[in-house]
């Protein structure tokens, strides 16, 4: 039995409605309890800001495309090298670091749970292997269904139950967590050398539209009672004028779940562009947020970009090809059989580029114009917008108008006229930031019941103590202190153990991988469906019996079971 007592913590816990109370937190065997014995270890938080462990609801840290990003960028592997030290392995890389590098840096920032944004089902093994090498965060994998042939067949037949059964079978086979749609239909069209430009355009050879895929998958998701909603990367990412597609997509979403959103729209910054060409691109954040503010059934995340060199990686193959045609630098493209594809290219976001400056402003506008912080979560689509180590700077920008103004003064002169950022006065408070970096994510991912994102009795003892005194720091003026404070926790506690102290990792990690087993009635099980088996054996390069990920790949798997169709 291990016990730990955190004393004098200034707690902000939005899920339990606690905002800045000084209190003690008792921990026994990895869970938060009422009280512990006198013999327990004690940490004095000295009235510093104490939050539940951070949760990243959309990041790319594990899996084949991340690894190919590493492979493509030896120059990055020469950056950020650290030697083996104490319990820490060697690390290298800055925007696509090694798995341990990711894990340590997230841990130093107080993050304890991550959702890998896109896992191709066929390549799940690799993702799970890298999960076990990301030891300080609990992991989940969003599973790609955007170009899944079986799903598209079910969509064409308007058979929601069958689509749901396919999802259930696949999630169980690959130990996935939720449904991710990346440019639905578009990635499959790209497999045939084409792309879709609207959500009502038909996917070649399949006679379904992205709109049909999205609406069917939303209903299938709710039929399966999955903890997370459909996680959507909208069509037309990164194209000037794409905001209309985004708004059209939002109009499709019904409100089906009282506990959480029905659609999670990811990196919306990349989907909020007006204009028609790169020359006249402008911000449509106001239109997007007007829609979001009237639709509580949708949660989005920012997809903020920051000015730096980074690597873009996504399942959205056609978009990456278009980017490659702009940059003529390295490019990788990949097709995943009957499921999806991917593309990777390096980019540099520069203040000299008007387009980059407008993108930067849009991300912040989205966050500042969304009334409820529960509906706009903070992330950079790591590493697409910026590596996650930039989160503290994003927090600083959201909390300080002064910081934003100073940054705006250094941007391309066209930025002011084509965005409304400079006119926004809002400055977020500590509570808003706590929602946007952990509580909102826990609710959106449906893991509050798993003891994530809050510090109630029985919750997992994932706690981040930042060296910030909220009573003495004025974030609007002293934003530097805020940025520095969020860069390095004083203590990061993971399941009751101090894993990181002042940025130094002090234990070997032991993370868990959450996955979902949605139980469907026997007559709907895909392993009993002769047509599904026949098509699987006909088209895949692997046998159906070799497809499922063996349990050995998840040494600490945590299964969430749901009773579907009831």
């Amino acid at each position: 039995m291990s016990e730990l007592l955190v004393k004098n913590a200034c707690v902000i816990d939005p899920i339990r409605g606690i905002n800045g109370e000084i209190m003690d937190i008792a921990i026994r065997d990895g869970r938060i309890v009422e009280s512990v014995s006198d013999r327990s270890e004690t940490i004095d938080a000295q009235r510093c800001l104490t939050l539940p462990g951070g949760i990243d609801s959309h990041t790319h840290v594990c899996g084949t495309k991340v690894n190919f990003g590493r492979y493509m960028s030896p120059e990055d592997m020469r950056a950020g090298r650290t030697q083996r030290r104490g319990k820490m392995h060697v690390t290298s890389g800055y925007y696509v670091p090694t798995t341990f590098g990711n894990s340590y840096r997230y841990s130093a920032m107080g993050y304890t749970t991550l959702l890998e944004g896109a896992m191709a089902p066929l390549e799940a093994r690799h993702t799970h292997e890298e999960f076990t090498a990301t030891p300080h965060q609990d992991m989940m994998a969003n599973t790609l269904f955007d170009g899944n042939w079986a799903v598209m067949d079910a969509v064409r037949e308007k058979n929601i139950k069958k689509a749901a059964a396919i999802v259930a079978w696949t999630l169980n086979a690959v130990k996935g967590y939720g449904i991710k749609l990346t440019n639905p239909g578009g990635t499959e069209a790209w497999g045939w050398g084409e792309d879709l430009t609207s959500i009502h355009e038909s996917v070649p050879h399949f006679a379904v539209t992205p709109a049909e895929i999205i609406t069917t998958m939303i209903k299938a998701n709710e039929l399966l009672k999955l903890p997370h909603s459909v996680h959507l990367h909208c069509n037309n990412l990164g194209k000037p004028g794409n905001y209309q597609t985004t708004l059209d997509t939002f109009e499709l979403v019904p409100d089906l779940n009282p506990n959480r959103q029905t659609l999670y729209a990811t990196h919306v910054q990349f989907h909020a562009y007006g204009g028609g060409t790169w020359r006249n691109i402008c911000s449509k954040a106001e239109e997007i947020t007007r829609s979001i503010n009237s639709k509580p059934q949708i949660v989005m995340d920012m997809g903020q970009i920051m000015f730096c060199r980074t690597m873009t990686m996504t399942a959205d193959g056609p978009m990456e090809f278009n980017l490659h045609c702009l940059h003529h630098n390295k490019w990788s493209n990949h097709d995943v059989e009957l499921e999806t594809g991917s593309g990777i290219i390096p980019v540099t976001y520069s203040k000299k580029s008007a387009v980059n400056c407008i993108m930067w402003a849009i991300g912040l506008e989205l966050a500042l114009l969304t009334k409820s912080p529960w509906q706009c979560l903070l992330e950079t689509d790591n590493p697409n917008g910026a590596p996650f180590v930039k989160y503290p700077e994003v927090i600083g920008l959201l909390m300080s108008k002064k910081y934003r103004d100073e940054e705006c003064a250094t941007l391309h002169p066209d930025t002011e006229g084509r965005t409304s950022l400079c006119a926004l006065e809002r400055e977020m408070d500590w509570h808003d930031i706590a929602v946007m970096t952990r509580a909102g994510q826990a609710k959106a991912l449906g893991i509050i019941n798993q003891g994530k994102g809050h510090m109630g009795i029985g919750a997992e003892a994932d706690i981040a103590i930042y060296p910030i005194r909220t009573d003495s720091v004025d974030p609007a003026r002293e934003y530097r202190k805020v940025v520095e404070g969020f860069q390095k926790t004083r203590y990061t506690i993971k399941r009751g153990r101090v894993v990181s102290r002042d940025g130094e990792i002090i234990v070997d990690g032991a993370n868990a991988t959450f996955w979902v087993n949605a139980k469907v009635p026997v007559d709907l099980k895909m392993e009993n469906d002769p047509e599904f088996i026949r098509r699987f054996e006909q088209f895949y390069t692997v046998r159906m019996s070799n497809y499922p990920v063996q349990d050995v790949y998840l040494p600490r798997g945590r299964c969430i079971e749901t009773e579907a169709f009831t």
Partner: protein
Amino acid sequence: MRVILECKVRKKPTLPIEAEAIIPRNFLKGTDLVVFEGNKERKLSELFWIFVEGTAVSPENIEIVLNGDTSRIKRVGEYMDTGSILITGNIGMHCGNFMSGGTIEIIGNADSWLGREMRGGTILCRGNAGHYCATGYRGEKKGMQGGSVEVFGNAGDFCAEYLAGGTVHIHGSTGDFPGIEMRGGQLIIDGDATRPCANMKDGTCVILGQVHEMIPTFEKIDRRVLADWKITADVYKGDIANRGKGTLMVKTPGSVYYKK
């Protein structure tokens, strides 16, 4: 000043030594340097007998001589900018990485990645070179950008990949794909080559031996007498598959080349 490093007999002679510390500039302040043997940090004196002859006031007057079994020593001369290194036997991988000046001479064979991403200086290899001689690293868009690499024996596959500047001269033959993705510079192969210069963008490649499996996306534009070698050569432009403007010159069959 001459620094002679004589390899001691090691218990496990196959363990690689990572010796990026062995560059002339570092010996200006003495021989108290560290290298890695496997994953263990070692003092230079634990692995080598060190003899120092004379003194030097500037690094360009320093010569390092490596004797003994040096075939598992990697990264010798990495980021070297001046002075000279003489290796009397074979040398391990990544010799002369990022080198920007000075001279490295290898009497024996060199392992893979000789002169990787070199910026300047001279490398002479009297024996054979391994794969990826004078290239960029995997995933890198620019390979060697300056200086010269001369190999008197043969070179392995992917010789001078992503070559962007400087001169690479292979006196023997090369393996598969020499000069692939060339951006500039000059590649001369006295012997034979297989599938040279695929996806070449710019630069010049001269092959004085036989070409096996010529890439079909090269356009023959000329036949020219190359006075330097007293031969006639077919001149190709390419790689036209990717709008390349490189020049590939291949000795015309039947034209006799007498090696100087």
